[in-house]
């Protein structure tokens, strides 16, 4: 049982975890962490710890699910039983089924489906530890995993949520804020194409608050995008740096 604290954000604009209204939780991104998957990425966002892996393009099983003129994207969002406060059954819940669908629909716009007809791409997301905003962190990691696998993309996809706690619109709600707050608006975004690929909301927001939240979430996405690019480039830059050092000696 969560005991509701009196205020989620105090008069000075400081939240329970010390952040200001428009501050992101700390983020760590790593690309290429699994040797068997065609592409993979790991994200730590606040206390969220999520692993994403991609297999494909490859022949689909069962075959009747494949399309003759394009590739099919499948996505599985799943939470480990130990990832939440009260142990969660490993069987897929209705929430996981819905999230698998919306995450898939957030990544699809970034692909070129006609390039690989009759094949399938499988994206697996495993939430190892959850603390609010897992669907956003999952999308950010999944997009990196797809890029890591060498599948061509129109753009990276990055995701971040905004919402309202007490009377304030804030960025990046963690679990307690999501449960006790007024509204939560997760957004996924393709930064170079200025395209929103996931948008959900629960709670109550006046129209102007909603607009503020969406814009705040997009700004959050842009900040995370910088880290996404860095994570991708880091994998290949290291070698270049080593050689520079060697030759300078």
């Amino acid at each position: 049982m969560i005991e509701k604290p009196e205020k989620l954000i105090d008069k000075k604009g400081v939240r329970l975890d010390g952040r200001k209204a428009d501050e992101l939780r700390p983020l760590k991104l790593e690309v290429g962490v699994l040797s068997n998957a065609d592409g993979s990425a790991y994200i730590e966002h606040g206390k969220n710890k999520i692993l994403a892996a991609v297999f494909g393009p490859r022949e689909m099983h069962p075959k009747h699910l494949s399309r003759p003129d394009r590739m099919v994207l499948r996505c599985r969002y799943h939470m480990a039983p130990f990832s939440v406060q009260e142990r969660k059954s490993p069987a897929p819940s209705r929430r996981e089924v819905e999230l698998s669908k919306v995450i898939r629909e957030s990544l699809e716009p970034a692909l070129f489906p006609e390039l690989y007809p009759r094949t399938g791409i499988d994206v697996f997301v495993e939430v190892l530890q959850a603390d609010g905003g897992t669907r956003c962190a999952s999308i950010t990691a999944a997009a990196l995993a797809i890029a890591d696998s060498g599948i061509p993309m129109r753009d990276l996809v990055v995701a971040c949520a905004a919402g309202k706690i007490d009377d304030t619109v804030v960025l990046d709600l963690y679990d307690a804020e999501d449960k006790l707050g007024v509204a939560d608006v997760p957004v996924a975004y393709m930064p170079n194409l200025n395209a929103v690929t996931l948008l959900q909301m629960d709670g109550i927001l006046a129209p102007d608050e909603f607009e503020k939240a969406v814009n705040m979430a997009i700004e959050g996405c842009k900040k995370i995008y910088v880290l996404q690019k860095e994570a991708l480039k880091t994998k290949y830059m290291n070698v270049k740096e080593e050689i520079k050092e060697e030759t300078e000696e």
Partner: protein
Amino acid sequence: MPTFFEAKQLVTPGELLAEGEYQAGENTYKEENKIYASRIGLADLDNKRVNVVALRAFYQPKAGDIVIGAVTEVGFNGWTIDIKSPYTAMLRASDVLSRPFKPQNDELSQVLDTGDLIVAKIASYDRAHDPQLTVGEPGLGKITRGQIMRVTPTKIPRVIGRKGSMISMIKQETGCQIILGLNGVILVTGKTTDDEELAMMAIRKIEEESHTTGLTDRIMQLLKEEKTKREENKL
């Protein structure tokens, strides 16, 4: 008309590379007069063509390519071959056997069985059909000796080097025969496993450092150093 990158700059999917009258080359795409990268790699401008040399890509079959693959299934009139690509390839029995055959499984598995490796050429491939292979040319067929290694297919040109300079140098220094499948599968056959391992080490280093300069010299140096080390260890 601007471009937004420097030569050999590392770019990620979606990054804007150019605007205006440019052509979208390898691993890029054009939308509304703008050219974006579609894979992570090194951006380059060739005349008016913007290209990205991908650092990570999988093999897309092309008719005429030499590939190395493994038999995964023996069927009624041919074999299914895994060529490490989104599409599985087929090798028809009629291509391998010089005489008309009776469709009995046993006969085919005696020619090529599951797990066998072959060097083949892609005879045909299009959007609606899986790649068809052929082994009806000299140098193609079942592999009986040597070691197999895999590299990202986009690195194969680097392993070949300009006018074959890199691959010739490795063959010379290690005394190995090396067949480069354009699908990123490489067959190394040497007089000893030591020689084979030496060649494989060199190729792995090329894969890791393919985007750097002065690589041919560094690989040559590496091979010479390793050979000296091995000589010393023998004594």
